């Protein structure tokens, strides 16, 4: 009987379990979960603090998910090594778990630069796990002054989640703009100003030079007094467990389109892995949830003896702050078309006669039509791009494409 072991218990692991069970209802599945929670979606922790979800609803699957999937979960233990000759995973409690196929879905960890004086800060948190959010929730009150280092997706969602529960929120970042990984200067400025209207203060182009117990001295010489510190500088893929045994690893674990690592019998999926971004043609870590699920699912199918290709990965993000939604996808290369109003920006990037990327601020209706054009590499010669410049609609497609998409008589 097959022995499937999954290291990690996030969304990629859930995808992997469902992938395995789509082919094999018999084999034994064991999940190694360092966190003591059933699978939940990391991005929901800010919604938890904001009150848009709760502990009961934050779970990614229903309560009896693991039972239904006949899946054993080992909570509160870590995988510390792999012997791929003997086909066992070594655990931190000394146990060894045998496997016939292994999926590494270890996710990523916060990257903390060596800040001077950080050890003097008593109340400090990352913002990656449910326990981070629960810990943060315990120490904040209506008077807390919170400093968040990092104005990326994680830092800003944290800011939104807590701003109405604390006295003040200040965000600093070395970058000259917010969300620098997905937005250009102009779009970033719109988001920043919206966040400022909701009470968040920014120090951009500036970072912490040193900490005192309740004070951060910035490189500019300014200082910020705080009670609680959140570090959201960046994340790094957790690759050590397979790197140690010789797997090909770059910034993430290198996988092929079936999610196989360079080691026989070992797959990887989710934020720990690095895959081909078809919009740019580059291999990169695309630490986003849809990819994690689809990679996990493909890995699960492969582990169970089938073959599922996931070869349409692109970076994409949908993120909103206080009702202002931003959607981005693909790569920002090539010719730019844009439509702007006072409250919205639509930017489309064209290269090699295909849509390669977009940035939409406050105009994301039906954005999936654009996303599918990037993923499917639909040639612009087959669509009416004049219509698409203004709005995402399938009316811009030819009657034939529309007919095949909608299944018949349209």
């Amino acid at each position, binding site marked *: 009987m097959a022995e499937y072991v999954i290291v990690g218990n996030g969304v990629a692991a859930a*995808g992997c379990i469902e992938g395995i069970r789509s082919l094999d209802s018999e084999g034994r599945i064991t999940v190694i979960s360092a966190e003591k929670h059933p699978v939940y*979606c990391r*991005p*929901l922790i800010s*919604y938890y603090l904001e009150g*848009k*979800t709760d502990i009961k*609803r934050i*779970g*990614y*699957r229903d309560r009896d998910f693991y039972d239904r999937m006949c899946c054993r979960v080992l909570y509160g233990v870590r995988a510390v090594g792999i012997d791929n000759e003997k086909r066992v995973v070594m655990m931190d409690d000394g146990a060894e778990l045998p496997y016939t196929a292994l999926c590494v879905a270890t996710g990523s960890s916060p990257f903390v630069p060596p800040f001077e004086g950080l050890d003097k800060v008593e109340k400090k948190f990352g913002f990656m796990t449910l326990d981070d959010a629960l810990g943060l929730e315990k120490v904040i009150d209506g008077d807390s002054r919170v400093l968040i280092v990092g104005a990326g997706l994680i830092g800003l969602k944290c800011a939104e989640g807590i701003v109405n529960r604390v006295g003040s929120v200040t965000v600093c970042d070395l970058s000259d703009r917010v969300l620098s990984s997905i937005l250009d200067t102009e779009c970033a400025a719109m988001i920043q100003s919206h966040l400022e209207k909701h009470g968040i203060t920014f120090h951009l182009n500036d970072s912490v030079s040193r900490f005192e117990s309740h004070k951060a001295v910035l490189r500019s010489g300014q200082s910020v007094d705080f009670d609680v510190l959140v570090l959201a500088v960046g994340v790094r893929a957790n690759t050590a467990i397979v790197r140690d045994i010789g797997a090909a690893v770059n910034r993430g674990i290198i996988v092929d389109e079936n999610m196989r690592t360079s080691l026989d019998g070992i797959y990887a999926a989710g934020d720990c892995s690095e895959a081909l971004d078809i919009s740019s043609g580059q291999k990169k870590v695309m630490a986003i*949830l*849809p990819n994690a*699920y*689809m990679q996990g*699912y493909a890995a699960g199918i492969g582990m169970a003896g089938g073959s599922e290709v996931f070869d349409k990965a692109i970076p*994409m*993000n*949908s*993120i*909103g702050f206080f*009702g202002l*939604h931003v*959607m981005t*996808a693909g790569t920002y290369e090539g010719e730019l078309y844009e439509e702007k109003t006072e409250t919205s920006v639509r930017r489309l990037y064209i290269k090699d006669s295909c849509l390669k990327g977009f940035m939409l601020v406050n105009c*994301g*209706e*039906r*954005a*999936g*039509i654009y*996303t*599918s054009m990037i993923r*499917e590499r639909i040639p612009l010669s087959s669509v009416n791009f004049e*219509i698409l410049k203004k709005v*995402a*609609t*399938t*009316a811009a497609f030819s*009657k034939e494409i*529309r007919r095949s*998409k*909608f*299944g*018949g*008589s*349209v």
Partner: protein
Amino acid sequence: MKRIYVDEQWCLGCHLCEYNCAFANSGLSDMAYALKGKPIYPRIHIEGTDRISYAVSCRHCEDPICVKSCIAGALSRENGVIRIDGDRCVGCYTCVLVCPFGALAPDKDGVMQKCELCLQNSCGEPACVKGCPNKAIVYEER
């Protein structure tokens, strides 16, 4: 599985399907009371150009990218029907970012909505189909 299909040859773009949809999902028994003078949030919508129009609603894909992408686990596939649990939806719009048909849109509170074929509401059969004056919208097996 039976799905909703639209024949753009017959669709006049009258938007009545949008009103029938909003009413069927309102939980109310008086259509004028439910809809008159109010913004509506239907799960089907008319698209088109100056020459054609057609109604778009969820295709109930066999390999639904919205379900695979939902960050809250709020979307699921049950007996072929893609359903959304509004209680779990956090309004992140990731489904809008990935649906190739543009078939999801939020309600007035930012919670995502989609066509569930009127299987759960008071209508019991697709209200858009039942009310289409030109029979441009059909519900059938293909």
